[in-house]
């Protein structure tokens, strides 16, 4: 049975982002009406819990539980912070969702506010998505005008404001406590946890940080029911899911499926990314964004679900699948990603800040053919002193490309040292040695 998309069903139709379209063809804020006029906030939380919806931002934490943890007995205001930072390399699903189906997110934000007792939701959108922000703001205005946001929504006495907050280019702003810091007008650096945002988040008030795609699923659950949601995909990995496939594939893009689709189908299947470009062969796969360990082609015949990818030794993360072909040098790949982590490390924790710099230096040296055999073990040793030693998971993220490429492709590292040069120089790569100093 072919799966019919619900998140991205209409994205190719010209006016799909407008309120009129959303009312005529999609949910049209009926889920919000149902929630605020016929359900108690706690019923909404129970329903989301029963659906088993797991966060789409990276960690896969159950959304209903997260909302339940938000402190109730407090005079303080509460907040929904929608994470639209979308900065994990390889991820571009929220981009599509916000640009082509913004009302689903706006409705999700309003229902989320109702559930946790918040009156304001901030959508923290990365600064680079200004073209998306304009669409979003315009549609939020439409929603206000139609009475779906603002005061006394559907005559229920429920008030809700949704504001867009523009970031300014920082990967770390995607981490939930760093996002809160950035919303407060500071550097995006993580906080010590606990307290978790559910207890003390934005402005030291109870808050829930939810990814765009997570919130977009909520109106669907309210409107189509828990049974519909749990009927999609494998147990504990239910519901519609967006996958971003990029790299050396014929047809890169966002694909909606349920989590029983396999990684292999997503990369090689004709209805998805369509296989490798120029008749080349698949060499390695990053299944969930640059922070997740690399998998080999013989490891990808597994469901692209949170649990199955974890079992294979990696993570589904933000479902950002990057496929590379046999022209790719894996030392170069690790070096490319470490340049990213070095540049984006927020600088708060020493192991992460200094470690990224050392890893990049070592990788640059090896890739240029100037490394020694012992540098490979040094990479492992430096990584060991970063993982688990930082306030946020950034430290674990930056060592993933190093550890997993050494694990699966140690022979390539050794070949660089032995031959004194890169052994797989591809025609699409640059010809000059990069300057090590980033503009940080």
């Amino acid at each position, binding site marked *: 049975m072919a799966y019919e998309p619900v998140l991205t069903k209409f994205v190719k139709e010209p006016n799909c982002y407008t309120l009129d379209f959303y009312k005529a063809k999609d949910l049209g804020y009926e889920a919000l009406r149902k929630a605020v006029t016929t359900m108690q906030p706690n019923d909404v939380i129970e329903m989301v819990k029963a659906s088993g919806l797991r966060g789409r931002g990276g960690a896969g934490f159950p959304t209903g539980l997260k909302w339940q943890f938000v402190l109730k007995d407090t005079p303080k205001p509460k907040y929904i912070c929608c994470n639209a930072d979308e900065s994990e390399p390889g991820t571009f699903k929220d981009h599509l969702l916000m640009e082509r189906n913004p009302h689903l997110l706006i409705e999700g934000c309003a229902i989320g506010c109702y559930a946790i007792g918040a009156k304001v939701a901030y959508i923290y959108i990365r600064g680079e998505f200004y073209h998306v922000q304009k669409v979003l703001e315009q549609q939020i205005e439409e929603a206000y005008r139609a009475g779906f946001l603002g005061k006394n929504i559907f005559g229920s006495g429920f008030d809700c404001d949704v504001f867009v907050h523009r970031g300014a280019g920082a990967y770390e702003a995607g981490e939930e406590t760093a996002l809160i810091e950035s919303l407060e007008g500071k550097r995006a650096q993580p906080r010590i946890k606990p307290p978790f945002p559910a207890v003390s988040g934005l402005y030291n008030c109870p808050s829930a940080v939810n990814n765009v795609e997570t919130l977009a699923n909520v109106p669907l659950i309210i409107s189509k029911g828990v049974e519909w949601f749990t009927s999609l995909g494998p147990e504990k990995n239910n519901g519609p899911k967006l996958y971003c496939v990029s790299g050396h594939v014929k047809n890169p893009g966002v694909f909606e499926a349920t989590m029983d689709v396999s990684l292999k189908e997503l990369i090689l299947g004709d209805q998805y990314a369509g296989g490798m470009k120029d008749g080349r062969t698949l060499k390695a796969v990053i299944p969930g964004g640059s922070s997740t360990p690399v998998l080999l082609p013989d490891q990808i015949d597994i469901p692209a679900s949170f649990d199955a990818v974890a079992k294979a030794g990696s993570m589904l993360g933000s479902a950002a699948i990057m496929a590379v072909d046999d022209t790719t040098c894996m030392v170069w790949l690790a070096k490319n990603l470490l340049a990213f982590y070095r540049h984006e490390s927020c600088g708060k924790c020493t192991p992460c800040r200094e470690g990224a710099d050392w890893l990049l230096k070592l990788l640059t040296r090896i890739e240029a053919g100037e490394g020694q055999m012992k540098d490979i073990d040094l990479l492992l040793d430096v990584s060991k002193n970063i993982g688990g030693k930082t306030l946020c998971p950034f430290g674990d993220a930056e060592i993933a490309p190093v550890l997993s490429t050494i694990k699966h492709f140690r022979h390539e590292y050794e070949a660089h040292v032995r031959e004194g040069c890169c052994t797989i120089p591809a025609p*699409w790569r640059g010809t000059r040695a990069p300057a090590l100093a980033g503009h940080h």
Partner: protein
Amino acid sequence: MSFHARMDYSPAKFHKSERRLADVGEPFRFSPEHQATFDRLVTHYPAERRKSAILYALYLVQEQQGYVSRAAMRFVAEQIGCTPAEVEDVVTYYVMFFQKPVGTYALAVCRTLSCALAGAERVTEALSDHLGVPVGGTDASGTFTLLEFECLGACDRAPVVMVNNDHWHEHLTPDGVPKFIEDLRVKGLAALTGCHHKVE
């Protein structure tokens, strides 16, 4: 024993009045429209949390004068009700704020994995050669500044270039660079493809 070099701290050499203060440049004020926009955006946050609007204030500064000068940081500090140091702290952290003037078009080429796999390294080299500037530099005519950015969140349209923080161009190839630059010169931002989902 000290590890530090011996220094002569005699008042004759280092008198307080001779300390050079950083040049703050021309005084800065928002234009009336930008002031109105800022005053509206501040209301999105609780009254005692004006600092939340700092990024918006800095974007407005940059829209008005192309970069964020020290005088502008002082002005933003007054608007927000914080110290200039706190503003500088923010400006220096986020990559989308320029602390020095940039060209009419700031070209930010994505250099992260998916774009690099599609040839972004060569695109940057071609741009650098064509314009005669290294990454971070501005060409002699003051029209183009070449920058490298990290994943822009559009990896299916790789390689991607962001122009002036607000505008996008997708699928730029090394061979396409001369035409890309020429079109930008002639048609301005209208020459860019944008970055939107194809509507078939």
